[in-house]
């Protein structure tokens, strides 16, 4: 019924099936929306946050989602600035995922603050010394950039594109996309960094505190680097999942392997730096503030040395190595495992930087503070996931996200035409989604 909206030359499931899936996800979304409204109407007492956990699940989700969304800026950087043209086949999806991640992050922040109606004070009364100010500015700007990057995608919808205005608009936007991608990469560098700075500048919190380079604590650079390293894992993992769910190959191996390889090298180099940072923190920073590093991993039910091991070895070195060695990179099982481990690793990193930072007692007579989120927090955290799934579903169904899809999935019965197309435009080079070509 909605075939007129579906991109030409691709096959989609029946509308009925689509709507069913949509309504299930919408149910989850609704649950999240109810929780969100509760938080707005009744206040943050709906959460299990408290005066020890001013930052909790949501801020973790925020940081995690932004790290994972890092695939967008990094692929953009690689494609537009470094010139890895192969990545054009992934860039749409990376942008979409980035857009979802960043819009989610902003939504979460809007729920997380006590007075959402005044959150613009962050701009109006900005304190330039605050990492959060930097985050807010860069995050909003980068979100604007992602929106700009996403809009032409929408305009590529078959029906919308028929309107000349939108057609030309899309055309023009593609034309300036490199500028936006560059801006985005620059902004991303700062906001990923400033998110790392959020924890790293806390000189009252020896677990998170790091020494500085210029005005930035080491975590500033570590966060940017890790987002660049692990973000692509997420993009690729989601791509893999999309392929599993749609039971179609959507992107050719070449761009995937390329991005996986770059990601692998990013992870390994990141892990070198991260390991040095951890070592320096454990042997210099923490002791100089009166703490034996082991103190941070003892006498509490959750944060043991396993946590550190999981983050650095399991979620860091192992995926990194799996991705730089050709055999494990080219093996889809080990590759996907590496993506998964990498995502987990960066999520653990963001978790400890937020929640373990809050849990550690600083005053010698204080004790570890543990925290279990309320259902409202869980629901609002799942809300963006549901929203993301919905956006992906709709975008996938109606927008030409994957330039190689047509080629890789010739529609039976019209095989000839596809063949012809493939023949004419190898690797889908004339895809309308390739602005640089226009």
């Amino acid at each position: 019924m909605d075939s007129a909206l579906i991109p030409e030359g691709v096959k989609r499931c029946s509308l009925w099936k689509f709507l069913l899936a949509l309504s299930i996800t919408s149910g989850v979304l609704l649950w999240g929306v109810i929780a969100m409204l509760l938080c707005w109407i009744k206040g943050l007492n709906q959460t299990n946050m408290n005066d020890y956990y001013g930052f909790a699940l949501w801020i973790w989700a925020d940081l995690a989602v932004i790290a994972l969304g890092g695939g967008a800026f990094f692929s953009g950087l690689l494609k537009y600035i470094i010139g890895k043209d192969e990545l054009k086949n992934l860039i749409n999806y990376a942008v979409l995922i980035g857009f979802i991640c960043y819009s989610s992050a902003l939504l979460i922040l809007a729920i997380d603050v006590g007075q959402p109606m005044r959150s613009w004070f962050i701009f109006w009364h900005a304190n330039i010394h605050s990492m959060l100010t930097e985050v807010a500015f860069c995050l909003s700007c980068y979100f604007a950039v992602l929106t700009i990057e996403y809009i032409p995608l929408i305009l590529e919808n078959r029906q919308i594109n028929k309107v000349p205005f939108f057609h030309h608009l899309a055309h023009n936007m593609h034309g300036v996309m490199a500028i936006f991608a560059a801006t985005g990469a620059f902004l991303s560098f700062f906001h990923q960094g400033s998110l790392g700075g959020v924890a790293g500048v806390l000189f009252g919190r020896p677990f998170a505190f790091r020494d500085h380079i210029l005005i930035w604590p080491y975590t500033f650079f570590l966060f940017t680097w890790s987002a660049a390293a692990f973000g692509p894992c997420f993009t690729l993992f989601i791509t893999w999942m999309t392929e599993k769910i749609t039971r179609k190959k959507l992107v050719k191996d070449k761009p995937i392997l390329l991005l996986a390889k770059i990601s692998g090298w990013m992870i390994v180099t990141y892990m070198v730096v991260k390991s040095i940072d951890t070592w320096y923190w454990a042997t210099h920073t923490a002791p100089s503030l009166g703490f034996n590093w082991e103190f941070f991993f003892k006498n509490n039910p959750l944060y043991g040395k396993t946590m550190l091991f999981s983050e650095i070895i399991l979620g860091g070195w192992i995926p990194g190595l799996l991705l730089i060695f050709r055999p494990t990179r080219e093996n889809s099982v080990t590759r996907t495992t590496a993506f998964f481990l990498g995502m987990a690793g960066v999520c653990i990193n963001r978790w400890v930087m937020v929640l373990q930072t809050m849990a550690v007692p600083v005053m010698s007579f204080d004790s570890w503070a543990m925290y279990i989120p309320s259902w409202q927090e869980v629901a609002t955290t799942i809300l963006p996931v549901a929203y993301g799934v919905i956006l992906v579903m709709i975008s996938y169904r109606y927008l030409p996200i994957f330039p190689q899809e047509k080629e890789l999935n010739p529609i039976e019965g019209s095989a000839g035409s596809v063949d012809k197309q493939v023949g004419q435009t190898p690797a889908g080079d004339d895809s309308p989604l390739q602005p640089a070509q226009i």
Partner: protein
Amino acid sequence: MKLSRRCFLSFVVGGAAGTALSPLPWKLTDDLSIWSQNWSWTPVPPDGEYTQVNSTCTLCPGGCGIGIRKAGKRAVKIEGLAGHPVNDGGVCLLGLSGLQLLYGPARVKTPLKRTGKRGGGQWQAISWKQAIKEVTEKLKELRKKNQPQSLASIGPNGSGTVSALISRFMKAYGSSNDMKMASKLDSDEQALFLTQGIQNGMVGADVENADFILSFGCAVLDGYGSPVRMFRANSRWKENSATLIQIEPRQSNTAAKADQWLPINPGGEADLALAMANIIIKENLYNSSFVSDNCDGLNSFVQMLYENYMPEDAARRIGIDVQTIIDLAHRFATAARPLAINGYGKGQNPSNLKETLAIHALNALVGNIGKKGGITGLSAYDYIRWPKVVTDTVAAAGLKESRLDGAGTNAFPHAKSLPNRFFDKLSAGNTSIQALLVAEANPCYSMPDTAKIKRVFDSIPFIVSFSSFMDETAMMADLILPNHTFLERYEDVPVKAGLTAPIVGLCRPAVEPQWDTLDLGDALIRIAQSIGGSVGAAFPWKNYKTCLKQTLADQWKDLEKKGYWMPSQSLQADADSKNKAGGKSGRYVLMDGTLETIYMAQDAPLEGDSRSYSMLLMPYDTIRITSLQIGAPPFVMKTVPDTVLKGQDGFIEINKKEATEMGFKQGQAVIVTTPIGEARVRVHLSSGLAPGVIAMPRGLGHTAYDDYLAGKGVNINQLIGPVEDPASGLDTALGIRAKLAKA
């Protein structure tokens, strides 16, 4: 339409600029911020002219001077009065919370008449006229039946006009069943009479000037005596490097801050004091000139000590080694200005006489009776000089009937009032009490074995409460005639709480009465006058304020100006100049026949057998919970640690090691059982409690008042019963046998 790049950019930039320059976003954001800063439900306190009313706090017997800050007609803050002789600016958390009582939800706002069944909480608001009429009718009826003695009253243990008016009313009416809530003041008073012959006296302790303070379980830093004064004294000790030794099984705040904490077996105070006395005398460390000049009965005292209180035996009984006792005795006797103080906790419970006498004997032996840094027997306040009550025949006949509690009889010749025995009698089936007036007391909460007390209340046909607050006793009343709170009324506040010089503070209204309440004094005057005859004639005043003004006659002007009056600047100076022990004879009796009986008597046993109840449950007092006069207001409750109360669950303290051996974990729910009752509590594992002892705070487990207090924790009085001191008749229970089991 073809959109050029240029056109596109101008479209975007133009659109953005246009929106930004329009008033819309600015107006909207501005509105948002204003709106979110002015929720209609967040109160904006109105301003007004700033004034201050100086008054006296009556929330505990401390007698602190307070200043009530006002904005317009509203009282907005209570502060301690700088320069006041009791507290000099300091103030306790309860005093600071006074306004929450004044404006709080637990107030009884108008006279109430019970409609449902007793204790059911169903009331009908009635007018004062009707309230007075109902009381009068009932009381007239009893007198008509020639049963005035079947009226009883329970009032505060004070020396001021309110307490006196109640007693006067009882006398004029014709009943001697005039109960005053008992406290340490009662045991001290009896001890003072036995040792120094001072009747109705009170004991002043010059704590500030002592340099070696031996505290036998006194909650010096948790509300003992005049609490703020004690805090100030403690700070002075620190400044002067005085030594504070705290003797008690639990590491109270006082023990925690003392220079030495000496945990002894509960109830071992008398043993310890007498063993020390033994050593001091044996080693000739006592003040021989003072003792020979001023004390009687040294020889028989010594003999008694040698026979019964040898240090080795005592040490065994109280669970510390002999050397510790010997050292303590040496240090005490050789200190420049030693002082031994007595009274468990805040002093809310009387101590047994043996213990009181033993501790004071220590003071006598080192010669610090009536000295700087010592103990002084003070005679009672005597500024209330009303004409004698002229009784009619009904009253005279009623007064001939003996008191139900036996106070003043041969058995308890020195006791003035024994409320524990009063309730025991009624609980045992005596039905002679037909009506009861309760004023400024909450026996249904604060007396041991509350279930029993409530049963007694249930059996009394007519009960009138004068409480300002819907407390547990008011809940059991038939009529509530609510008193003004201390911030709405006049009252004289003679301080008895251990000060060395008498002080009468003036409590005066800081604000208009907030509700339809009436001063207790006025209510009594109205009731008396409406009964008429000789009862009315005993109350010749127009109202309570007139009564107060006339009573204080010459002092009134001064009182109004200064806020307090010190009847004689220093009784201590008098005593010093005579270099005598004070009192009528100027002598101190160490031993005579009466004292010998007391010293030789076996201690009253604790309730329960030690086999089925292996532990000892003790109440403890903490300044962070009010346990008597008044239910803790929200601010006070807010300071209660989460190891004492968590949610609605109260905690019981237990020695950490012992608890671990018993398999209890911090916070675990347990059932504590005593011969009186049982309760569900959580355990708090403490390194500051002797093994074998478990402890719970007084002041929790209210069933009345408001949601900020009711239902939180367990009232320890549900679990303990009275233990009568055979020497004084007073209830001197220090705890009860108990056992713990997993819940």
